[in-house]
């Protein structure tokens, strides 16, 4: 039974691992830190899995556990030296798809997101993942009104960081 449970879990995790990688990219600055957080999220998901009753989609449940781990449960390792900058490690999609101005703008935007608080990053993450305000509110445990207010503030903060 446990083996079957583990097999089902890892199959689902393998299928949806992108969600975890994206959370890691948002909350860490180096490959080592990324790997550490990915490991901790995977462990927390596995531990919480027996209580996942399928009321929500596996991916929806993953968002919650991954965000919980990134903002609350994960204890950053002191031995990790953060050597690489956010925009040099992440999101290497650019090139031919954008013109230089847009690419530069995106770089600055990712850098600005990096400067947000843990909670703001979670809100931005869910927004970028195409979640509506009801889903964002439910995932974070806040009211929909609060989610909207916070998102507007985040947009304001980003503008301020980009145009000081």
């Amino acid at each position, binding site marked *: 039974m446990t083996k079957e449970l*583990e097999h089902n879990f*890892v*199959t689902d*995790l*393998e299928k949806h*691992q*992108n969600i975890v*990688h*994206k959370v890691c990219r948002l909350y860490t600055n180096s490959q080592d830190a990324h790997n*550490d957080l*990915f*490991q*901790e999220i*995977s*462990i*927390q*998901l596995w*531990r*919480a899995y027996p*209580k996942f009753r399928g009321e929500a989609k596996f991916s929806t449940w993953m968002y*919650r*556990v991954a965000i*919980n*781990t990134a*903002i*609350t*449960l*994960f*204890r950053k390792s002191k031995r990790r030296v953060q050597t690489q900058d956010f925009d040099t490690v992440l*999101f*290497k*999609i650019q090139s031919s798809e*954008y013109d230089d101005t*847009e690419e530069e703008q*995106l770089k600055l*935007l990712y850098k600005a*997101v990096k400067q947000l*608080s*843990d*909670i*703001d990053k*979670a809100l*931005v993450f869910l*927004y*970028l*993942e*195409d979640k509506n305000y009801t889903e964002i509110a*439910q*995932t*974070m*445990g*806040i*009211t929909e009104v*609060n989610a909207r*207010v*916070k998102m507007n503030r*985040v*947009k304001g903060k*980003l503008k301020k960081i*980009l145009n000081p």
Partner: protein
Amino acid sequence: MDQLDLLKKDWKKQDGSLPKLSFEELTSLIHKKSSSVVKWIFIISVLEFVLPHLILLFPSFRNVDAQMESLHLQNFNIIISVVFYVGALIFVYLFYKNYRSISANSNPKILMQNIIKTRKTVKYYIWFALSMIPIVGGVFSYHAFNTPEFIAKLPDGASMAVVWAVTIVVLLILVGIFWLIYQLIYGRLLNKLKANYNDLISNGNRGNLEDI
């Protein structure tokens, strides 16, 4: 176009560039050791429950019973021991109950509330344990200061008020030192979590940590 919408357009294109871990790699990963803050909270909390009792291992504390007996404080000794151990058991039960409620399945708000609640149980236990120092110290000193041996040892003209003032200051310093050490451990563990909690609940449903 809104800046976040520009980001969203780009965000969706990153899937191809993300690492892909195999089934085997993921299987081995989930069995590795967790470095969760909850694990540390549990370890430190258990230590905090155990440490006040370890003090009895020091030789100078071992003969407390004999000293209490010589001052005819056996009954007080029994009462304070019962109060302390019953209190400690109640706190251990509450701690266990709150600790069990910590789950990564909860939403971030509930998760943070439950962690803070669990730590608060330990905080109240520490207050409770520290309050024993002035109570036991005060009663013990009161009886010790009234023995003929103590009065005979007092220098001529020494006032009891000064003796009491010094005793109270020493007891308060003792409590203060323990309290500071505790605040350091407590603060280190929960500062970030408290900041995140306040950040999360700000605006719409404003509240604060004292509401928990």
